[in-house]
């Protein structure tokens, strides 16, 4: 019997097994791909918290992904060049320690999410979509026109950040760090969604008046979810920059936000493991079709359109449905 739980266990274990096999057969590129799948799915898991469970369609989550990326890149490049980042109220010249980088990422992405959430959650529906998109674009244009950190070209960091003396430049080690993050985040999301807070969040998508009438402030619930969501997507951005050792404004682009939504849709909306399946499908699809034609996005477009119009439950929904009919 294939249940949603089993699909998720199978996918996690197979990710791990493929990575170990890739290491054994010396295929570093495959490990990089797997790390990318994990990082993208973390980003989309963050978005899924507000989109899938709270029905808040944020089209601006690239803002958090990009901010996380830029923070990590800026801390790392200053540490690498031993340049001062701030000189007041204390001297600080960046850091190469993953723990410190993640701490800053979580802090700043939460702050940004708090600010944007407080503004955007004043609206709802289609206004919310357009406003989240517009604020993410604001950061994008800011990154392009701000010359200190590479402007349009972005900048490279030369080594990955270090964690407890592990050699992160070794592909499998870095993959395992990402994998560990994925497990922590999946565990957290699982707990959050099933908690009273998660129930309240899921209730906000159906009927705001009823939520209010039982004494819950929906704005507060949505804002907390938005902050948590932003922090998670920010972590993904930080890991992504570490993976590629490159920071560029494209992290903030609206295509990025759109792709996060696509991961969620392909995997199955409002399912905890949906983004993982979706990201895995997307990256595999890109690799497979990309090797045949550079115009693979035409086919991607067609697949997305047919998924939305004809197969609403995404891949997980499709498998569960298929099993039920058998």
């Amino acid at each position, binding site marked *: 019997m294939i249940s949603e739980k089993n699909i998720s266990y199978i996918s996690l274990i197979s990710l791990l097994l493929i990575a170990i096999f890739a290491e054994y057969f010396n295929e570093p590129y495959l490990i990089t791909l797997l790390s990318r799948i994990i990082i993208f799915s973390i980003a989309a898991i963050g978005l899924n918290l507000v989109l899938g469970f709270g029905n808040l369609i944020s089209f601006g989550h690239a803002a958090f992904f990009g901010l996380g990326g830029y923070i990590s890149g800026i801390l790392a490049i200053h540490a690498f060049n031993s340049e001062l980042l701030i000189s007041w109220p204390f001297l600080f010249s960046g850091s190469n320690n993953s723990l410190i980088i993640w701490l800053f990422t979580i802090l700043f992405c939460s702050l940004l999410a708090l600010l944007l959430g407080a503004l955007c959650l004043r609206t*709802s529906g289609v206004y919310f*979509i357009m406003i989240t*998109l517009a604020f993410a674009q604001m950061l994008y244009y800011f990154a392009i*026109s*701000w010359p200190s950190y590479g402007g349009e070209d972005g900048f490279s960091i030369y080594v990955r950040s270090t964690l407890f003396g592990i050699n992160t430049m070794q592909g499998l080690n870095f993959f395992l760090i990402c994998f560990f993050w994925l497990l922590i985040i999946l565990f957290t999301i699982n707990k959050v969604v099933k908690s009273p807070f998660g129930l309240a969040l899921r209730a906000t998508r159906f009927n705001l008046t009823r939520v209010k009438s039982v004494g819950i402030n929906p704005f507060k619930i949505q804002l907390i979810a938005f902050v948590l969501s932003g922090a998670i997507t920010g972590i993904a951005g930080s890991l992504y920059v570490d993976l590629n050792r490159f920071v560029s404004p494209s992290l903030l682009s609206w295509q990025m936000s759109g792709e996060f939504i696509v991961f969620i849709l392909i995997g199955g909306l409002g399912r905890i493991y949906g983004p993982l399946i979706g990201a895995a499908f997307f990256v595999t699809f890109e690799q497979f079709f990309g090797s045949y034609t550079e115009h693979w*996005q035409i086919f991607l477009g067609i697949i997305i359109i047919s998924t939305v119009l004809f197969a609403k439950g995404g891949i997980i929904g499709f498998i569960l449905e298929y099993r039920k009919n058998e």
Partner: protein
Amino acid sequence: MTAELLIEQLLNGLQFGFMLFLMSAGLTLIFGVMGLINLAHGSFYMIGAFSAAATFAFFNSFWLSLFASFSSAAVVGVIVEKTIIRKLYNRDHLDQVLVTFALILFFSELIRWIFGAFPLYLDVPKILNGSIEIFDGIYYSKYRLFIIFVGLIIATFLFFLIGKTNLGIQIRAGQYDREMISALGVNISKLYTLLFGIGAALAGLAGALIGTIQSVEVGMGEPILILAFVIIVIGGIGSIKGALIASLLVGLVDTLGRFLIPWVLQTITNPSDAMSIGSAIGSMLIYILMAIILILRPTGLYGKILS
């Protein structure tokens, strides 16, 4: 800074504003009447620009290429509406976002396939080449004046269409109660197709007009689409009047901000810093404007109160 420069920038802002209006008018009507959020509106802008460039390359006529721009965008718009968009009217916003996002991927890649990745160029016709003296000693580009003129004509036409014609009454009624007007015998699906076609045609025309000043390339539609969203949020969804006022506001604030802020900063800091900080702030200005308006009026300047 001279007065001539300021007037020139003012007119540039006005010209930009009218082009933004061509984009946002279609978008706001499509949302207001059909309840559809259409990310692919920028693709019609791009399709218009590319058909203009292709027509220009064949026939070397600017006027013919203008005609090609809006008619091709309208045809593509109608086909897309009849095959795909139609299925989305009763779906939620997420589905609409996804499908129209996928349409962008599709059209961008298709255009890149047909025309290649290099930008194309359109030439200004001889009659609109050069500049003209508008005040004593103040010269301004004829072509940009022509764009302002076209924008004015289309704005007038749209206000007449919405306010005075039978079709306009149906459109306005459609914003309030879809079922009621179809019960009164209006062929609603025809109305939707027509409206979507008009919106696409306006976007295509804007693409060709702007493509002549800038270059015609894949991905040109999205920056302007996002500005159109900002405009709709500021002006209020579904309101043509709001779209016009917000378009001019955004056009002026964006153009003047990029120009004035570095100039103001020069008085405090050195020129190169002023340039870089100023352009960074200038690029954020309209979003800050949007945030302020949202805090004051969450449904935009002329928006209906959300239920």
